[in-house]
């Protein structure tokens, strides 16, 4: 028997109908993700990467095809998947601590209130926010809010972590800090979680991932699947100075742009 992948995406097609106009967001998308693998999905706007993730989350359903998790088809949201969005993951009326504890409550109904709060504090400490646990999201910076969202997703202890451009709205400096934090937390956990990370930042994808799935737009398809050949743990400063890194990065950029250039002339390209 062939070993089954953690997540198998089979021939996924998504059509939207808006004002009688049909639009294909995803067409025949297939790839698989192994257990404990960190996979980035990268592509320009409109390539359907967020649509793909929303189907993985269970919020949307595909027109054709299916997603299997542990061999079971996805039919809706599930407690095996934790999600971090770009915005609004947190509930503004709950403090940081309450937000994390609320997430824990949804996956662990038997834990007492005190246990939930203790676990929440533990994870807030891991993301460096123990002093801010009683603050409301409106009192936290964007970066801090994403830290809380990550703490919640990790505290829920799901097998799979789905992240939809989680650092897309964060300034460059804080983004690198958060990337390193995420990588550290992911690498130190046993067993490692399976992560699907949507981004449009090539450096972010290389630094974080085991595998990069590059998508192309109109309609959204998988363009390439690329293994990232760098050993872990990765040191960003050392890594970016190596020849191999720059060669790899340039290849990816070339692919990224060749896809876009091939589109120019006919259809409009949104970067």
């Amino acid at each position, binding site marked *: 028997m062939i070993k089954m992948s953690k997540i198998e995406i089979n021939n996924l097609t998504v059509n939207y109908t808006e004002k009688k106009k049909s639009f294909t967001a995803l067409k025949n998308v297939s790839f698989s993700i192994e257990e404990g693998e960190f996979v980035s999905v990268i592509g320009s706007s409109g390539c359907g990467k967020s649509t793909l993730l929303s189907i993985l*989350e269970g*919020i949307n359903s595909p027109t054709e095809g299916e997603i299997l998790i542990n061999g079971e088809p996805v039919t809706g*949201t*599930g407690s095996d998947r934790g999600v971090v969005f770009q915005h609004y993951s947190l509930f503004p009326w709950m403090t940081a601590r309450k937000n994390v504890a*609320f*997430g824990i409550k949804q996956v662990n109904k038997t834990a007492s209130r005190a246990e939930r709060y203790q676990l929440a504090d533990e994870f807030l400490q891991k993301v460096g926010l123990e002093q801010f646990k009683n603050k409301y999201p409106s009192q936290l910076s964007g970066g801090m809010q994403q830290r809380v969202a990550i703490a919640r997703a990790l505290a829920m202890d799901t097998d799979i972590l789905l992240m939809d451009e989680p650092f897309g709205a964060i300034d460059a400096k804080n983004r690198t800090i958060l990337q390193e934090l995420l990588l550290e937390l992911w690498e130190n956990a046993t067993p490692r979680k399976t992560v699907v990370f949507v981004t449009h930042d090539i450096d972010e994808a290389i630094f974080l991932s085991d595998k990069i799935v590059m998508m192309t737009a109109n309609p959204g398809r998988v363009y390439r699947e690329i293994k990232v050949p760098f050993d872990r743990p990765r040191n960003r400063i050392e890594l970016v100075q190596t020849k191999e890194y720059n060669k790899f990065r340039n290849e990816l950029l070339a692919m990224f742009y060749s896809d876009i250039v091939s589109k120019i002339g006919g259809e409009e390209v949104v970067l």
Partner: protein
Amino acid sequence: MNIQTKTIAAPEIDIEKKSSKIRTEFFRRYFRVVHALFAVLILIQFLPDQLTTETYSSYAIWFAVGVEVFTLVLSALIKKPASLNLFVDIVAFIYGLLIAWTLATAKFNVLKAALFPPPGKVLWQFIGDYDKILTNIQSSIGIILQGYLLAIVVAIPLGLFLGWSARLGSAATYISKFLGAIPPIVYIPYGIALLPTFRSVSVFVIFLATFWPVLAGTMSGVMNVEKKTIDSAKVLNVGRFTMMFSVILPASLQQIFIGCNQGLTVSFVLLTSAEMIGAQSGLGYYIKNYSDFGDYTRTIVGLIVVGIVIVFISFIFNRIQKFLLRWKQ
């Protein structure tokens, strides 16, 4: 040398600066126009009365002294200059009003004496009628609370449910819009026909007056909850009950409060009007009853008490709202 003189001189300047700062701070706190108004108010009480009836000036004096002592104590206690200014301005307004009122009635008698008693007399009447007023306040607030709370307890869950199904596109929106458009006062004939006592009819009308705005506010709140908030909850795999009461309810709270506020205002208008028409108790009854007997001192007492009660209730309401929405910036 230079350095030495500097180090010695610096603290002296500091102390001087500090003491002058304290002095200006003291002036800013205690030397205000409001205290001059207080002095004027006290002095005009000693002008000769033009009225033949008793004016009870001493009551006005004692009241003003009480307010003044209270103002001075708060001047010392309130930390924020903005809050102190607000409070002092209100007191100044009260003094100004009392000065004009005293002059126009007791001292120069330019208003009709039977309709406009001097302030001292109103205070005297207020103290004399204290028990009676308290009973009437209890009666009015009891009815309002009963109808109002009942309406809130029913309308919010119903609004959450209907709003949620309206999000999915149901007839609930249109039905509630139609029913909410009918002014609650038109249900009074049915209330009178169906219910045994004035009290139960009042509760019924206040219930309706609150029910529709709260229902409409809740529904529109639910329908305006951002999709992203709902998606965040969905991916956490929350149950139906948790979704309703831990996510949708707090997310629509601001608009629910708008409905509650509207309901409270309409409730007071309706109740005092109803009490003036057919009640045997309540603040509206107190006003109407005594004005029928030509007792305008008590009518004014009633008016002031109604004002105070409404201000007090909206104060508490605002406090609750601020507390429950403290997570908003």
